[in-house]
């Protein structure tokens, strides 16, 4: 018997995958074909393997739902993104909102952060609105100490929320956009001597 016809079933079955990948030596491929021509069971297995592989390869590429793309691009093009200059690294961008299993998007850190900032600004706005226009008010030392204490508590609360949310917020961003403006406004009211710095947080 010719050597190419010497394949046993076990030899043929072992080589089906490599045969389908086109990685068998020509002599081995021929031997496998000869064997499958003579062996209905191996021929059936080869046909089955070929069909499953073809069907796997025919699984269609799926279109990503537009909502996913929209939310990603909205976050990428957000206020902390920088366009084409690359002056600010993407790493400084706050994390994207995550989706719940039901599909609802949420960002607990953003909500809490915004709520805390709103509290601080509301207190500040109230102080500004209630401020007598003239003459400039005179505060006692106790009132100034109390105001400073409340401001520090508000900033500490803000910091705690940030930490609990588990997200790193850039300190310079926090100082520049959240802490700085109200503190500067507060300093105009009560004439606090110092500017907001990272050490004050």
């Amino acid at each position, binding site marked *: 018997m010719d050597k190419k016809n010497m394949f046993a079933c076990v030899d043929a079955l072992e080589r089906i995958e490599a045969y389908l990948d086109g990685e068998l030596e020509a002599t081995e491929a021929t031997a496998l074909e000869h064997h499958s021509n003579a062996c209905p*069971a191996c021929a059936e297995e080869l046909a089955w393997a070929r069909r499953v592989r073809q069907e796997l390869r025919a699984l269609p590429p799926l*279109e990503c739902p537009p909502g996913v793309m929209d939310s990603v691009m909205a*976050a990428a093009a957000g206020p902390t993104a*920088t366009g084409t200059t690359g002056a600010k*690294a993407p790493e400084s961008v706050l994390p*994207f909102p995550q989706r719940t299993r039901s599909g609802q998007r949420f960002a607990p850190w953003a909500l809490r952060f915004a709520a805390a900032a709103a509290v601080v600004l509301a207190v500040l706005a109230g102080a500004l609105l209630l401020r007598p226009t003239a003459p400039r008010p005179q505060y006692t030392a106790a009132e100034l100490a109390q105001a400073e204490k409340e401001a520090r508590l508000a900033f500490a609360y803000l910091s705690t929320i940030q930490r609990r949310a588990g997200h790193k917020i850039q300190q310079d961003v926090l100082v520049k956009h959240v802490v700085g403006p109200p503190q500067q406004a507060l300093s105009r009211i009560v004439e606090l001597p110092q500017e907001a710095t990272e050490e004050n947080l």
Partner: protein
Amino acid sequence: MVERFQRAVEEQKDMVYSFAYYYLGSREDAEDVTQEVLMKLWQHFRELDFDAIPRWLNRVTRNASYDRLRRFRVQRRFIAADTTGEGETRAADRTPCPEPDPQETVERKDFRHHLQGALAELAEPYRSVLLLREVRDLKYREIAEALELPINTVKTHVHRGRKVLRERLRERLGESAYGQEKHVCVR
């Protein structure tokens, strides 16, 4: 930079979503994984070569899908233990249901349905390597790079994975459905 990122996302988002969908068998989970992966791409975009993005995404998408599946299994195991006391529920219980093509025959759709179910039953690393090899049509070298495995190991996994997949598919379809009779060795 945002424009380049948008171009990369446009080119790759369907690949990421498709892999996650076929891996997890759930639109919802696939959407979550896709968003998570594209988020990571944005965070690392500046340090990546544009041409290297597809390779980077192969690895990150697979890992994110695997993490999602593992979390899901843990979650379902706890739920099952709480309610029925039985073991974990397989991801295959969430068999994918792709949009039906009216041109497809009923038999073809049924076969594809079972094929995806059998694929979702496969254990790792077979599921990953088969998806990357057969569905994504990657070369063995590219799969080895994505999974950080030797090429020969990947080949072994692919070959073994195909065999296991065929066995699972047989179980789903029944012996008569594909005409396979008991294998009688003739030589």
